[in-house]
């Protein structure tokens, strides 16, 4: 596994890979240094993920001038994302010119002030790069703890940034500092480049920054990783269980097997934070399962895996099945395997999948995966943590399903209850998360932000609500978001999205009944819906048709559907109303 050099990236021709093609994304970069060398590397890594990009650099050192001026080029160019970078060098000279203990607090205030102002007025999310630790020490070890030392204050500045960025909607910290620590500060700073052209770090470090930034953007624009599919031999343990036997594989708390033991601990942490684990392995199933069940140093047990495919079929077929079983799109799956042949076969059959390359002979497996930034994510909620539990419960539901003769009997037996609620501060985080994550059951794919939703709530022109669902096996939580735009004669469904975990439960019918009730109350008897096709929402192509709407008009990028309703119109649903409406 060789990391590319800056020069190799410049030299390479930029070819779009087959499979995924995200339209041109506009990235706006604001920095107090010369960050232009980032452009070719960022473009390169995004292109490898199938994302075409345009990168715009604001003139150097105009961060807040741009952020606070509604007429600035930043606002006029309406970017898809804004990256704000403050270099450490600029800060150091400021530090030495100011007196007092908390010399850098004003810097944080400025950054946060500019970002909040922008986020309240523009759509694009913001990434704030944190500050890279300085090298200067006026004691040595004491610098860390002594309040007046630069090192101490930079650390404090970064801590404050973490906290305050959380108070801004759709604004996250890009932890450049930890990237720099990983690469080693002496490989990051370069005084000559700084003196020559205010270039803040070495060219090779631009490669690290570009690669990581691309990973973060991929998690936003394509999908974060939701499931890891793992190979077994030379991945979860060393050696080949079919040849070496359960006793012969390398897996132990000490010695040659320790790296695999540590890798399993790492995977367990990922599982505990909500990423599903699955297995795709070419092995004799019974032998491999015996290793998982019986080996004394195994950290992961059979139940930690949401799906296990151990057979001699090709891995792409197995992964496609896992994807269907768990209802997780292939582009949200990371496949980890030590074997080049398997990785290539999977990548060519499933181009949108992410591939984790590991080599058990070259050091830490945890490092090989961790450094790639596969698990970057724009948001994290408590609900994410519960994902494993949810899928386990789903499995129970599926088992129940097979014991019924008809779908209706099954659905009735689930004892489903839905609760409709208004959009408010209480549920807005989850609503925004669902809005950003839902690709399949999303009719218009409008990625409304927190502020936009709250604006709809306040406006009399809109009616918004969210739906929670539970059944006898457990609580799905908030799984659907609806925004209705009230027109003169009709109600337009501006937003309708539903988590893919609850499809085919007659939830659409339940929601439709609610929409009808709202419309009738407003004296509107026509409901209009729109379907805007994307590469991922084919499952709802016939959504309105299935609900009895008729096609009003159709263009390439949209179809408009309409239905006339009457007061007593009711769709058949197996979901009970769990609560009275406000």
């Amino acid at each position, binding site marked *: 596994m060789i990391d590319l050099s800056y*020069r190799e990236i*410049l*030299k390479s*021709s930029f070819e779009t890979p087959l499979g995924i093609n995200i339209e041109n994304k506009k990235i706006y970069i604001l920095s107090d240094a*010369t960050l232009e*060398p980032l452009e070719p590397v960022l473009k390169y890594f995004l292109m490898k993920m199938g994302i075409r990009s345009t990168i715009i650099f604001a003139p150097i050192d105009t961060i807040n001038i741009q952020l606070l001026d509604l007429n600035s080029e930043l606002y006029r160019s309406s970017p898809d994302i804004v990256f704000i970078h403050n270099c450490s060098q600029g800060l150091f000279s400021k530090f030495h010119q100011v007196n007092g203990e908390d010399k850098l607090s004003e810097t944080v205030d400025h950054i946060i002030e500019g970002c909040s102002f922008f986020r309240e007025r523009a759509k694009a999310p913001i990434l704030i790069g944190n500050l890279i630790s300085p090298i200067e020490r006026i004691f040595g070890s004491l610098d860390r703890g002594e309040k007046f030392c630069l090192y101490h204050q930079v650390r404090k500045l970064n801590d404050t940034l973490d906290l305050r960025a959380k108070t801004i909607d759709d604004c996250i910290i890009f932890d450049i500092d930890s990237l720099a620590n990983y690469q080693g500060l002496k490989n990051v700073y370069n005084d000559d*480049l700084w003196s*020559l*052209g205010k270039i803040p770090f070495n060219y090779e470090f631009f490669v690290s920054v570009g690669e990581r930034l691309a990973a973060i953007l991929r998690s936003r624009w394509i999908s974060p990783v939701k499931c890891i599919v793992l190979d077994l031999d030379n991945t979860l343990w060393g050696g080949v269980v079919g040849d070496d036997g359960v006793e012969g594989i390398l897996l132990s708390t000490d010695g040659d097997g320790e790296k695999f033991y540590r890798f399993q601990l790492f995977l367990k942490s990922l599982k505990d934070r909500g990423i599903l684990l699955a297995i795709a392995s070419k092995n004799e199933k019974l032998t491999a399962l015996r290793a998982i069940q019986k080996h004394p140093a195994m950290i992961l047990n059979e139940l930690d895996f949401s799906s296990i495919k151990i057979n001699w079929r090709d891995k792409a077929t197995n992964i496609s099945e896992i994807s269907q079983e768990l209802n997780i799109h292939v582009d949200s799956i990371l496949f980890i395997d030590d074997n080049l042949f398997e990785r290539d076969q999977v990548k060519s059959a499933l181009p949108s999948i992410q591939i984790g390359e590991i080599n058990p002979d070259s050091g830490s497996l945890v490092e090989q995966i961790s450094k790639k930034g596969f698990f970057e994510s724009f948001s994290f909620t408590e609900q994410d943590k519960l994902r494993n539990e949810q899928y386990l419960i789903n499995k129970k539901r599926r088992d129940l399903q097979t014991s019924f003769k008809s779908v209706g009997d099954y659905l009735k037996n689930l004892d489903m209850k839905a609760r409709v609620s208004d959009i408010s501060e209480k549920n807005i985080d989850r609503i925004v998360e669902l809005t950003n994550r839902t690709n399949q059951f999303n009719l218009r794919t409008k990625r409304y932000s927190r502020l936009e939703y709250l604006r709809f709530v306040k406006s009399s022109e809109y009616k918004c609500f969210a739906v929670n669902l539970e059944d006898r096996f457990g609580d799905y939580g908030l799984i659907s978001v609806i925004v209705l735009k009230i027109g003169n004669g009709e109600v337009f469904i501006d937003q309708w999205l539903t988590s893919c975990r609850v499809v085919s439960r007659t939830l659409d019918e339940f929601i439709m009944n609610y929409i009808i009730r709202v419309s009738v109350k407003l004296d509107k008897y026509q409901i209009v819906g729109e379907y805007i096709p994307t590469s991922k929402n084919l499952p709802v192509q016939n959504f309105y048709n299935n609900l009895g709407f008729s096609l009003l008009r159709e263009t390439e990028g949209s179809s408009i559907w309409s239905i006339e309703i009457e007061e007593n119109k009711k769709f058949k649903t197996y979901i009970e109303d769990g609560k009275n409406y406000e």
Partner: protein
Amino acid sequence: MNNDLLARVNIIFQDVLAQPNLKLNISDTAETVDGWDSLNHIYLITEIQKEFSIKFSIQEVRSIDKISSLVGLINEKLI
């Protein structure tokens, strides 16, 4: 000697400016070479220093604007 240096410099220019067919001439200047702007200049010099294991002062980096002076300076440092 200078021709050999020029050939090595040429490869760096080809890579950095992503122009695999670029053929530098000793009479070329920043004006005549497409893409040789102030930003690329810094990276070109970084790679040249690496290639020849030499070090230019900041003053020297700023003064270089012709292939002839670049090759001349490299030659000087190598002696």
